[in-house]
């Protein structure tokens, strides 16, 4: 089986220590996490992880079942790049003098879909959002102009065929309707960490 890039989406409770629990699932198997993002999800009180790794599907499936096994994880999905819509954001800091003198700023901004976030007399910060090769391409352009700082965010991804976690959860429950399945209908209510 060929290794390829997978984006793992994990729905979890918001719990201190869970990040470490999930991270060790990868580090224990000496798998490099290429990108990791945590954020709120479409369901209030449920958090969402996006994790990017390059592995075979077999390994990724096993990783997901290990992730899902964690008490505070609701569900883990994995997708290939063509099954998701994804973006990464990048910031570039360059000397304003260089930019002003040597570049047609307007063209630059258009071509790379970038925008200026800050313009000062000493430096300018551009921002762009896109796929890896797009954000990388702008680095190549700005490097000769004395790129001072560059930073790229983790990947955020939306699953194309997902109709949201509420629906996914119901489908999941139909396949394996848990004992307390009914209670999960109240998932969007901001309960405590758990109910008793």
């Amino acid at each position, binding site marked *: 089986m060929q290794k390829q890039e997978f984006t793992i989406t994990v729905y*979890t*409770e918001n719990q*201190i*220590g869970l990040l*470490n*629990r999930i991270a*060790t699932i990868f580090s*224990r198997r000496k798998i490099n996490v290429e990108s990791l993002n945590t954020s709120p999800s479409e369901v209030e009180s449920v958090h969402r992880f996006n994790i990017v790794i390059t592995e075979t599907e077999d390994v990724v*499936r*096993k990783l997901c*079942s*290990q992730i*899902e*096994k964690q*008490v*505070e*994880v*609701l569900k883990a999905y994995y997708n290939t790049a063509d099954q998701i819509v994804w973006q990464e954001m990048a910031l570039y800091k360059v000397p304003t003098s260089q930019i002003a003198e040597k570049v047609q700023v307007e063209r630059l901004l258009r071509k790379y879909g970038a925008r200026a976030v800050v313009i000062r007399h000493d430096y300018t910060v551009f921002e762009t959002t896109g796929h890896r090769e797009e954000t990388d391409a702008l680095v190549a352009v700005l490097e000769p102009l004395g790129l001072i700082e560059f930073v790229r965010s983790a990947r955020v991804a939306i699953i194309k065929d997902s109709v949201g976690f509420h629906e996914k959860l119901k489908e999941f429950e139909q*396949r*394996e*309707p*848990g*004992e*307390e399945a009914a*209670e*999960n209908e109240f*998932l969007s209510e901001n*309960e*405590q960490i*758990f*109910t*008793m």
Partner: protein
Amino acid sequence: METLQAIPAPAVQNKTAAITSQSGSYAVMDALVQENVKTIFGYPGGAIMPIYDALYDFKEQVKHILVRHEQGAIHAAQGFARASGEVGVVFATSGPGATNLVTGLADAMIDSTPIVCITGQVFAHLLGTDAFQEIDVINITTPVTKWNFQVTDANEIPAILAKAFYIARSGRPGPVLIDITKNAQLQLFDYAGYEPCNHVRSYRPKPIIRKSYVEQAAKLINEAERPFVIFGQGVILGRAEAEFKAFIEKAGLPAAWTLLGLGALPSDHPQNTGMLGMHGNYGPNVLTNECDVLIAVGMRFDDRVTGRLDKYARQAKVIHLDIDPSEIDKNVKATVPVWGDCKETLPMLTELLQEKLYPKWFQRFWDHQEKEKNTIIDQEMHPASGTITMGEVIGVLNELTNGDAIIVTDVGQHQMVTCRYAKFNESKSHITSGGLGTMGFALPAAIGACYGAPQRTVVAVIGDGGFQMTLQELGTIMQFGAKVKIIILNNQFLGMVRQWQQLFNDKRYSFVDITSPDFVKVAAGFGINGQKVSEREDLKTALKAMLAEDGSYLLEVMVTKENNVFPMVPQGRGVGEIVLSAAEIK
């Protein structure tokens, strides 16, 4: 950091008659009482002192066994849990107290033992300051716990402990650690009583059974010509021994056990064909690669069971019954996965099975067994002369206990020999460190087993190496009177490593020669009677004396120095390549 110093005042609640102002420590003790905990294994220290202070008032309801090292506490709790089927409870202090639990947590994690550990922690405002005996126990124990949580406010205690017990014992059981800062233990709060937990929304302890898979599994079994059942601890943890027996009996299936499945089916059951794995029986290993349908019940295809995976049961359709979905397809791809609690899946499956007999197929097992008996077992169990063998000791023990004792083993050659030859009539009778292979496990685990099953005889079979790892727990026996019968099988070597060095490293014995103290004198120092036996004719009398002793007893048996455990599936080979002697290992 400043904010941590001010612990938020508990939200003002409507005072009812039931709400009383109590300390966090009281809430801990009340939770244990409500969870019907009768025995705690522990060791006090600075950061857990408030809980020990509360324990002082609960002395009548809860027995606290003061161990001699925290590793002893958790192994004892494991022994307790494995013998009783209940959750084992451990108290330890912060820092070194907590780090000493790590081996036991890892052991309980890999062997799915329900444990709740409560560790003290420094005051919340000191977290992260390198305070005295402060250690980040939550992060240290994350990979070796099913769940862990740090409590910094007493208001959390009742609900968190309820959750801890629920998670530890439900689904695939495992260890849970709750770290409680000292301020939370001391804090007075409005305590509304304890309520057990039976639901955590993100946690699904058992998958709901898909009937279609049960039907597919039944069809495969009904159509099989050479079906073979392999069972593990899942049968015991699921309390499904009767359901399992009914299952194999109805369909006339041959069955073999993993190390931890031992005892789930009585040893003398006519369909019990023996032990799987590296030092398992010849027939079950060889025939794994000849069956047409392999039915795995509550086991996880450990590498010591499967040998080389690409040479494991490739010809067979595999039906895998397990409660933990992450075990399905982890090592061996299942043709039909039957997720669920085997207490529920087995009866559903049994219902759909045809009554069948496989006399020819069974005969294959018995033929292989005969071969193993002639080449290995007879020599091990009834040597004509020479020093006593390990197998002989177990043989006489079987005779004297009739298979009714709980036998706890440590790790190494004596463990493999005991598991191969000991007889068991009932479940929860065999306790060993399987997955982690923790030397030093047996003595404290046997102490725990005495409290977990007080009406039963508990025999700990330990090697001379493993015994020296945790022998300080003789002090626990001395103080609290656990009636552990200790058999040390002394071959004056770290025998299993020596065996490998002989077979695979050209007999280059590198640091496997271990000297021992006078174990009988050591025991005497702890007020425990004992004797040492080297002669065959003394063996039975000595074992009788051991079993007759009203109290703990230590029997040291000098056994053959350089005996090897066979058969053996050498590492890196398939189960079909199991060998009966050293000569077969090229």
